[in-house]
């Protein structure tokens, strides 16, 4: 297994380098340049030219590419042209925020999706099954940014004006913490404040995928519980709970693990919209701002990290396969 992981990681190196080169070319091909950010009335053309020179943008493209690759490989991600600070400082700020948000969303996706899928499979064709099917298709068909806006509208704007609605069930529409008074809270108060801010963004990001996972889980579970070994388990008098959660679940989870690897890039790209709507200072918002500003170093560094996360996510999914399914061997 270790050899397998090592081999996969080695394969990942040319893959990420290829992705990086592709991103570099695409970004350079897009019209516009970072100095355009600074164009406003009365800025003389010579000033713009001098800015480009100060930033090294006047160099030929292949020189820029090799300089950038060289510093990248040595761990220097360069300097943001729009934010005026080192890219590593930006990433250090933003990565934890994105991991918190997408980690919570991932938890919602799989915990909620698997639980609902099991319930629906066990109670197939019941009223509950039908309601959940309807509900999950309804939620699945909503785009995440629209869902985000609706959540804000309902849970922070409208319910705020309803007298009897408890305050703690209205949620702040933006930010990671309260802007005023956060510092004066104790440890638990801070934690509660953070969780309170996390509720709407993580639901917006996770809930529609959870609905999809529930669909997959339902059908996969239904297939498994019709198999002979489940009938055997029931016949030997095991309680239903043990049959489902111990014997059926493990096999039913196999297709879901594939989804784990697939959902990671999906989550990261979904985070782009959700982070913007909720003013969540994560990587998604950073990469969008950077693309619009043609902030090349930031675009490159964030793309690199996204690529790494996707590669690692898929690797984790493949390793989980082997853990769950004894038929799979990677030697």
């Amino acid at each position: 297994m270790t050899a397998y992981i090592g081999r996969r990681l080695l394969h990942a190196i040319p893959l990420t380098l290829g992705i990086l080169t592709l991103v570099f070319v695409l970004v350079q091909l897009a019209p516009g340049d970072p100095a355009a950010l600074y164009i406003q009335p009365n800025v003389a053309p010579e000033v713009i030219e001098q800015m480009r020179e100060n930033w090294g943008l006047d160099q030929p493209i292949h020189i820029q590419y090799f300089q950038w690759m060289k510093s990248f490989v040595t761990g220097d991600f360069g300097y943001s042209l729009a934010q005026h600070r080192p890219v590593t400082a930006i990433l250090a700020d933003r990565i934890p925020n994105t991991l918190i948000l997408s980690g919570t969303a991932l938890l919602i996706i799989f915990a909620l999706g698997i639980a609902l899928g099991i319930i629906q499979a066990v109670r197939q064709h019941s009223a509950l099954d039908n309601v959940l099917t309807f509900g999950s298709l309804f939620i699945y068909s909503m785009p995440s940014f629209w869902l985000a806006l609706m959540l804000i509208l309902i849970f922070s704007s409208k319910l705020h004006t309803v007298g009897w609605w408890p305050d703690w069930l209205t949620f702040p529409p933006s930010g990671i913490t309260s802007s005023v008074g956060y510092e004066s809270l104790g440890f638990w108060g801070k934690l509660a404040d953070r969780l309170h801010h996390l509720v709407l963004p993580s639901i917006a990001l996770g809930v529609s995928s959870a609905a999809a996972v529930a669909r997959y889980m339902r059908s996969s579970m239904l297939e498994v519980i019709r198999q002979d070994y489940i009938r055997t388990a029931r016949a030997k008098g095991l309680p239903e709970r043990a049959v489902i959660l111990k014997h059926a679940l493990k096999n039913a989870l196999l297709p879901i693990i594939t989804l784990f690897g697939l959902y990671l890039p999906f989550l990261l790209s979904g985070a782009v919209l959700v982070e913007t709507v909720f003013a969540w200072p994560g990587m998604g918002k950073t990469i969008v701002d950077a693309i619009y500003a043609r902030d090349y170093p930031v675009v490159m560094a964030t793309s690199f990290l996204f690529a790494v996360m996707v590669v690692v996510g898929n690797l984790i999914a493949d390793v989980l396969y082997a853990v769950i399914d004894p038929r799979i061997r990677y030697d």
Partner: protein
Amino acid sequence: MDVAPVAIRRAACCLAVAALGCAGDDAASERTVVVAFNAEMQAFNPLVNTDLNTSEVINYMLFTPLIQYDSAFEPRPYLASHWDLDSTGVTFHLHRNVRWHDGAPVTAHDVAFTFERAKNPETASVLASVFLDRVSAATVIDSFTVRFEFTGPHARPLDGFWWPPVPRHILEDVPPPELVRADFNRRPVGSGPFLFVDWEPGVSVTLERVPDFPESLGGPANLDRVLFRFVAEPTTLLSETLTGAIDVNGSVFPHQAAELERASGVRLLHWPSREYYYIGWNVRDPTFADPRVRRALTMALDRRELIDALLFEYAVPATGAIAPWHPMHADISPLPHDPAAAAAALDAAGWRDRDGDGVRENEVGTPFRFTLMTNHENPVRTDIAQVAQAALARVGVQADVRTMEWQTLLARHRARDFDAVVQSWVLDNFRVDPFSLFHSSQAERAGSYNRSGLQDPRVDRAMEAALAAEDEETARRAWREFSLALQQAQPFTFLMWLDELAAVSDRLDGVEMDARGTLVGVARWRKR
């Protein structure tokens, strides 16, 4: 009292009751004012910053410009207590009791240092081209007296000095090309009524009042703390405003005005902005080469309708490039909305519908058809393009609307690779200097702003006369002639000057905003 933080604290208490109890009181929120914008600040250094919100923070909060403007846009003393002005230069006498926030006095050496850094081409400072293109040298006379020499006489020379000095003792060791990435820009040491406390990137900037700020510059601010928040999504920002989590929303869009007017606890302010929308015609294109044609295209449009329908009346029709609130604005009558006259003018210019397909053709049969470009990030611009398309179709002109991403649009506009474009122009100061936009010497200059390529001797003459005028009356007459000439030349269809809108919580008193900016009076805001 802030509503959202209380709700959060209650939630906090629910979870924290066993552990620590709820320690937070409302003292902090009572003294702090939260101001939100939809974009992050850029650099708290007047030498390198080019962002308008950031520049308001620089000029009204963190630093002390030599002059400030009053509400009639006349220069008033600020860091300079008084000045001696003659036709060759100006001598500023500085207040002696203004200090950098690290304790050092603000002196004439700081002013001269800032001027020299700005003038050094390696700095790539926008101060030089925005304010100082008609100032040639600075001389320190004594520690609190500095003299500037002009390149020539002009009518409103003090307009060139609405910028603050930066501290020489901190920045003199930074090489000019490195100033753009100096740590100072994100942790500035200023001299204004507020001092820098914290910048949480992408989230907030916190400033605190300077308790002993000199009375001669207006005295200390009323507020203890101002916290700027950055929320990109307009709906989220509106929601935060309505729930009271934000005291001032400085990024309100016209379509949100009605909801804010209905809401309780919040009032809506609006004032004329420094931004106008226009349709720029590429004058080099034979289709648009004839000024009669360009005037006809303007007359085909109903600007009143655009303002009412797309901007909810938060704009005024534009007649030219000088803002209606500016002392040099000439009140000329706009080109009328008159489709019949537009059609007649197009006929006279040789554009007639020769084959009966509803689109006009010239003598050789080329149809009057062009691409109208705009960027899709701004829905109002896209809407303007579509309304214009419909209005032009009614006079037999076919516009194909093409929307693209902002940088792509800008790159094509800069390269003069366009037929017509819906764009806006923002004034970054109160000087009237449309030279780079409309002078014929700029028409074919790479990267210049005369992207339409206008070369009109009457416009040139009027502009040169106005810029060289030695007194305000002569200048005003020349700017009037310029406005009339520009209207005849019509390189742009000037559409409208926008209003700027802000939502202000009823907890705040003394809030006044005008074309000088959202933050112009922040030192006099008061929290109930």
